[in-house]
């Protein structure tokens, strides 16, 4: 924290609302995103995709395409020199479909040409002999024994059976129902892009937008048959990610074309390809049965979850583990049977999206809690506070919940926030559901209030050591002024790591000026920008590297001052850096930092941060799988037009367990953005497939929340420090996305009195069409 003995962050260190170092370039339009990169002589690449969700592939005839003037290369499965497949967890996704296409949109070939128009014409000239086969698109059928196999590896990506306590124990009060969550897309604003430049050493330099440079490198190198040292990646400007850039998409295609032509290749998607090119949030079919005592204490939770992973593995097994282990929500549940399956189908692949399996189950368990409250005659908040987890409680996995987890405090805090004023007849059309275009009749608008409580694991789980490495350096600039340098491969995707890293370095190194080197593979992995992990993990690495630099410098100074060996051993006991000076705490001696650096030269250190060890789930779903959790609670207020089925979200309140806040302004941006994405899933966002084919892969048909859809967020930060994390931080990006959807739908239910078992909620789910079908209105 600022003001801590021995460190100075000043007003630009940890805890300040320091502004983004890349902000000026971004507001002026000068910031270079991956899609903005151009080099002389570069080629333009495009990808040919299967229009069929399932088809045998015969001959891929590229001869006509190759003959086109301006076409430099066409590559197909036959041109992949290394491993033919790749993937985050299981390498089962072909670089190009070879003998069978398993989803509509699967890459079959790629071309490089002198310009994009020529590349497009070349795609049209490629003849692919498809033999369409009936696709398996129903996840329920895919899971059945004896189902036709979508892939030789089988249709079941993972199955988890979690048994906790005595699953046959029952309370006297029970609610049971089924729920469905549609396929959401990350829809980051800047579509995928990379610039691949062949190097003289036979390797490649890639500048690209990704969430995890080192994972990309590993997969690219394996498919190219190159040593990883010859595949160098540098992060270009990234226009959002939200999980959608965790998988490799166009990287290997671009690399193959660059190697084939010996020229730089720009490969980029348009919006349609972006929708087809990356995995989405898993659609989920869920069944829940909750039982409780008459007083409202949960006795048991049973859940069965079926997720559709689509054609290739991506991160499906990990998403399922999250869904199952969070299925009971942040509640004390003595007995549970939580079962889940994620299956392979001929639908588009699904993988990581903000919340990673938790928003789905949160929608289910929160609907159940509301129904239970209703049956018990309890207020929804009262039932939740009564059952909310407390540190020390045993989770369904057998894991003991660590502190802090202010779940109860979160739901109480949102419930205590002031409500918006009621809708009056004086409200302008623009304040009604439907806005100006399809404004409602005042008297037909109903208001509803809904609550949701949730929690989300932080960092990677199940024994994975997602360590992060960073390097720090303290040196003098050309004017003799000390400054710090930080190097990390952490992907800045918009979340603000670049700001946080500078704040931490400023605080620990005690200098104002911090230079952040580009994120690249010239340093060890920082892990993925996902799982709410970078402020904790890469923040921890930067913190550790900076602390090591200061330790080294102080030890050197102690040695040069002739201080006793025990001081040299732990110099912080006698020396501190403050205000640009190294001060002897007992002696009062003062040595300018600049002088110390001039005398002994720059100081550098590298540090790798590991989180505490976790364990895999055993055959009964038991273990210690999650590093830590963050709780969040939302309250949503909605107005619903009963005639048109249109919803207006009037107000949202959020109380979230944030740990120590490194940057209040960034925090606020994260929770507002996360809330908006959850709102989108509640009322508008769904990638619709018919027979495995996405029917709405455009921003015209896939609706995203606009400024007119997202209300102001009334936000309460609960800031209990998290043990084991630098400064006591918690990850903050995902928790609000997990609860916003459930809260909005709860509010709609409250307004219209319908069950609403699926999201997104559509107008057709809200209006009574039977009156239309039967003019007599019977």
């Amino acid at each position, binding site marked *: 924290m600022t003001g801590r003995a021995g460190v100075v962050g000043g*007003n630009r260190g940890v*805890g*300040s*609302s320091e*502004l*983004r170092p890349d*902000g000026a370039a*971004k*507001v*002026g*339009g000068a910031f*270079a995103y991956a*899609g*903005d990169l*151009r080099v002389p002589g570069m080629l333009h690449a*495009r990808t*040919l*995709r299967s*229009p069929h969700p399932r088809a045998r592939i015969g001959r891929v005839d590229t001869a006509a395409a190759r003959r086109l003037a301006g076409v430099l290369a066409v590559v197909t499965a036959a041109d992949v020199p290394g491993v033919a497949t790749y993937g985050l967890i299981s390498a089962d996704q072909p670089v190009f479909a070879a003998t069978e296409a398993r989803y509509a*949109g699967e890459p*079959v070939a790629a071309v490089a040409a002198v310009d994009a*128009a020529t590349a497009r*014409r070349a795609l049209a000239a490629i003849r*692919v002999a498809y033999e369409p086969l009936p696709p398996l698109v129903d996840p329920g059928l895919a899971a059945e024994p004896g189902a036709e196999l979508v892939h030789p590896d089988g249709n079941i990506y993972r199955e988890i059976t979690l048994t906790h306590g005595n699953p046959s124990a029952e309370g006297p009060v029970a609610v049971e129902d089924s729920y469905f969550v549609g396929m959401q897309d990350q829809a*980051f*604003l*800047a579509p995928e892009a990379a610039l691949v430049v062949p190097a003289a050493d036979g390797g490649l330099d890639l500048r690209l937008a990704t969430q995890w440079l080192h994972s990309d490198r590993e997969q690219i190198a394996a498919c190219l048959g190159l040593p990883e040292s010859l595949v160098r990646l540098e992060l270009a400007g*990234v*226009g*959002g990610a939200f999980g959608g850039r965790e998988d490799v998409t166009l990287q290997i295609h671009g690399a193959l074309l660059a190697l084939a032509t010996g020229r730089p290749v720009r490969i980029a998607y348009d*919006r*349609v390809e972006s929708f*087809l090119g990356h995995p989405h949030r898993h659609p989920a079919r869920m069944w829940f049965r909750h039982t409780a005592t008459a007083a409202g204490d949960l006795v048991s939770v049973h859940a069965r979850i079926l997720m559709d992973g689509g054609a290739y593995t991506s991160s499906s097994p990990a998403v399922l583990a999250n869904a199952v282990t969070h299925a009971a929500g942040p509640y004390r549940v003595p007995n549970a049977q939580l079962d889940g399956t994620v299956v392979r189908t001929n639908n588009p692949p699904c993988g990581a999206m903000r919340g990673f399996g938790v928003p789905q189950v949160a929608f289910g368990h929160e609907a159940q809690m509301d129904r239970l409250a209703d049956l018990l005659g309890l207020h929804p908040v009262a039932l939740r506070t009564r059952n909310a987890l407390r540190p020390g409680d045993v989770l369904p996995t057998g894991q003991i919940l660590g502190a802090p987890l202010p779940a109860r405090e979160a739901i109480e805090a949102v419930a205590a926030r002031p409500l918006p004023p009621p809708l009056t007849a004086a409200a302008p059309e623009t*304040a009604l559901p439907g806005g100006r275009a399809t404004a409602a009749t005042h008297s037909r608008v109903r208001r509803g209030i809904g609550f949701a409580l949730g929690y989300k694991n932080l960092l990677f789980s199940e024994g994975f050591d997602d360590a992060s490495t960073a390097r720090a350096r303290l040196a003098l600039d050309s004017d003799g002024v000390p400054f710090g340098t930080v190097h990390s491969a952490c992907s800045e995707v*918009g979340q*603000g790591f670049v700001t946080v890293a500078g704040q931490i370095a400023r605080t620990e190194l005690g200098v104002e000026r911090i230079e952040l080197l580009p994120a690249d593979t010239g340093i060890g992995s920082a892990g993925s920008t996902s799982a709410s992990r970078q402020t904790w993990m890469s923040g921890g690495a930067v913190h550790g590297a900076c602390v090591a630099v200061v330790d080294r410098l102080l030890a050197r100074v102690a040695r040069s001052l002739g201080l006793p060996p025990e001081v040299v051993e732990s110099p912080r006991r006698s020396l501190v850096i403050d205000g640009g000076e190294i001060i002897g705490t007992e002696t009062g001696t003062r040595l300018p930092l600049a002088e110390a650096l001039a005398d002994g030269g720059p100081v550098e250190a590298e540090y790798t941060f590991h989180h505490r060890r976790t364990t895999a789930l055993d055959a009964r779903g038991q273990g210690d799988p999650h590093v830590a959790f963050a709780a969040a609670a939302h309250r949503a207020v909605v107005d619903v037009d009963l005639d048109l089925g249109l919803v207006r979200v009037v107000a949202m309140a959020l109380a979230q367990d944030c740990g120590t*806040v490194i940057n*209040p*302004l960034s*925090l*606020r*941006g994260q929770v507002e*953005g996360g*809330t908006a*994405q959850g709102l989108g899933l509640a009322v508008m966002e769904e990638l*619709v497939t018919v027979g495995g*084919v996405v*029917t709405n892969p*455009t*921003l015209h048909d896939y609706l995203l929340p*606009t*400024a*007119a859809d997202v209300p102001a*967020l009334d*936000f*309460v*930060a*609960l*800031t*209990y420090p998290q043990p084991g994390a630098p400064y006591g931080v918690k990850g903050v990006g995902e928790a609000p996305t997990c609860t916003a959807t459930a809260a909005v739908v709860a509010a709609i239910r409250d307004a219209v009195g319908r069950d609403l078992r699926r999201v997104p909620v559509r107008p057709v789910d809200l209006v009574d069409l039977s009156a239309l079908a039967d003019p007599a209105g019977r």
Partner: protein
Amino acid sequence: MSAGPAGPVDGAEGDDTEGDDGWEPLQYHLNVDGTRRVVSGARLEESLLTVLRERLGVTSVKDACEQGRCGACSVLLDDRLVTACTVLAADAVDARVLTVAGLGASGPAARIQAAFLAHGAVQCGFCTPGLVVAVTDLLGRRPAAGEQEIREALAGNICRCTGYGRILAAVRDVQAGRAPGGSGAPGGSGANRTNGVGGA
């Protein structure tokens, strides 16, 4: 947009298949940010967005949907707010095209940019150039626009990162004529609990 088989699939592209498809390369001038720029070898069907980005290298204008749905490519065409992806470049020949880069280092746009920065309205920033243009247009026309009018006016500009809260805060601040606050936003996290972290 009709629902159809997805994407650039085989044979689904509208372009001609081979060789000389009979198009006549165009040459014309565009006035971009006050500078006369020569466009040559262009096709008639190219959008202003394509010509700006791919022929003139003006990459500050962003490309996120090419359907007029996201506002990332917002520019002013003779002081009118348009999405560059839905305007033919050839139609802009006699007009003044103003991008975010040409809005000026001082004046209203600069204040808007400073407020975006100060209020955390920028995360990934991909929506930002378009939003700065759209807000400049809005406040130029309707300096005292109310909350609901601002929201509706900006509804053509999608931001996937921020949830719009900080963007609206920035707009309100510019309206109020307040100097952007820099890093002076409330910081405290010493207490266990802070309401409204980061200011409203």
